[in-house]
């Protein structure tokens, strides 16, 4: 583990992400990079198009906010470095999503940790959450969390899949995650009415899959539920899992609108930390 990127907006959720990054950094010697994106108020962005130019009062307000954010960011960074962790910090301005996407292109980053509030209902339908967008565009694994996580107690990881294909990068990342925490992976296939498979087939396939991909310290399970998303969450509940792991295909645009993406739904509706890896 070289570098862990933590986007922060100084919220409680972001603090949880920083705490987790700090624990992992201590374990692995990774650098933690804190990024804050200062988002221009929407009204300001519109006034730039006006003949009169930027509103001087709003500009002043923005400058004050930026100064304040800089200070906050520096404080966060100081706390980490006092703990003996290598820290980098960066303040960016503009659209959080676009700016984070740029950060994510940094080849040095091999894990993103984000706090997530978990959008639901109308907000989700209209704008989606930044977390789910990051999940979709990151080139490295992303851990998103809504509750504090203590690394030493992380022992049970649920990995949900259909066990039909093997993405080498995904599997390598998953194994890295497992060894980092010394956890058991609980492989689960969610069986629904729409993709009903007899246990006699599915179990055999899962067994071959874990054998071919040389996994150790794991369990296998088929879980019946109405929807895949429900199944993953219910199964995690049943075994009291500490973390959910998913490979995502990250559909975008119309595809997303029509079919939805399982990983994003799970991210938004689970209260457990979720590790996702985008398969490109």
């Amino acid at each position, binding site marked *: 583990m070289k570098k862990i990127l933590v986007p922060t907006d100084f919220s409680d959720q972001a603090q949880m992400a920083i705490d987790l990054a700090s624990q992992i950094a201590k374990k692995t010697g990774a650098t933690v990079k804190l990024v804050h994106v200062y988002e221009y108020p929407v009204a300001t962005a519109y006034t730039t198009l006006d003949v009169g130019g930027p509103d001087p009062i709003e500009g002043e307000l923005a400058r004050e906010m930026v100064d304040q954010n800089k200070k906050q960011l520096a404080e966060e960074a100081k706390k980490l470095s006092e703990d003996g962790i290598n820290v980098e910090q960066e303040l960016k301005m503009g659209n959080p999503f676009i700016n984070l996407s740029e950060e994510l292109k940094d080849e040095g980053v091999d894990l993103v940790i984000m706090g997530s509030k978990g959008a639901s209902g109308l907000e989700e339908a209209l704008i989606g959450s930044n977390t789910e967008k990051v999940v979709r565009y990151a080139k490295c694994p992303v851990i998103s969390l809504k509750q504090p996580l203590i690394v030493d107690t992380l022992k049970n990881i649920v990995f949900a899949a259909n066990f039909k294909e093997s993405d080498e990068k995904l599997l390598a990342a998953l194994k890295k995650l497992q060894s980092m925490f010394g956890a058991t992976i609980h492989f689960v296939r969610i*069986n629904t*009415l729409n993709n*009903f498979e*007899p246990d*006699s087939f599915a179990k055999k396939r899962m067994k071959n899959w874990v054998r071919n991909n040389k996994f150790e310290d794991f369990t296998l399970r088929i879980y*019946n*539920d109405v929807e895949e998303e*429900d199944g993953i969450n*219910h199964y995690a509940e*049943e075994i009291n899992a500490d973390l959910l792991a998913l490979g995502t295909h990250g559909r975008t645009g119309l595809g997303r609108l029509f079919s939805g993406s399982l990983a994003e739904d799970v991210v938004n509706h689970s209260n457990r930390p979720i590790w996702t890896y985008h398969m490109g």
Partner: protein
Amino acid sequence: MKSILCPTDFSEQANHAVEASFYLAKKLKIGLHLYHVIESASEVDFNVGGASGGGSSMDDIFFLKLIERTRQNMDQLLATPGLEEIEVTSEIKTGNPSKLIFEEIRSDKHGMVVMGTKGASGFQEILIGSNAEKIVRMSPVPVISVKEFVDESNFKNIIYATGLKDDEHEVIGILKELQVAFDAKIHLVRINTPNNFQTDWATKQQMESYVKDFGLENYTCNIFNDPIEEDGIILFAEEIKAGMIVMATHGRTGFAHLLSGSIAEDVVNHAKRPVMTLNINK
């Protein structure tokens, strides 16, 4: 529990049923009644005093020979090593075998029927094929159908295929008796099919209150997915290497049976291990 009734035609399967009966009688500390019917148009009871009178034709001579041979068969069966450890009685009758066997089952003298079945193919002897199925469906007491060699270990790992309904207490009662006698583990399983699809969380909850209501101990809870219920039971039994299958049948007959299918009969015909069925809609 009352004695075990073991109808026998002295076939290989019937002998396996005797083996099974032996372990059951020994462990449950009950008697065993071996029962054979010689097929005949007239019902003659010659059990006590040898041949019964009437006529002197060739038929009678053949019939007497048949009786004699049957007695020899029964004596041979009674001499099976080990049987002296349990209390065994025997009986030979003539008449309509399925009618007489049904009468005996319904006589209220027996607590359980153990019989050999040969599966769907072949109908050489009276105890195999559809008659066995009829008995499974109609018997007021539990029926254990045996196809292959059985020993004590068969009764140590018992699958209970359940619909998780509350009308199964009678089956549970017998299951518990077996469990105590053989120190057995019970594997509860609900077969999940597309037609009766249930989420795991709902089934688990149901199972938990089921085992609590019936006070089960030393058990495992399982859900097995298969398109066909009877296949699921058999495949699950194979997977966990169970020694015996227990299930309630609702004694469906005729048209309804054709439409909905009665799982129990299909399992009897395809499972290699003993299957105990109890009709709970008597």
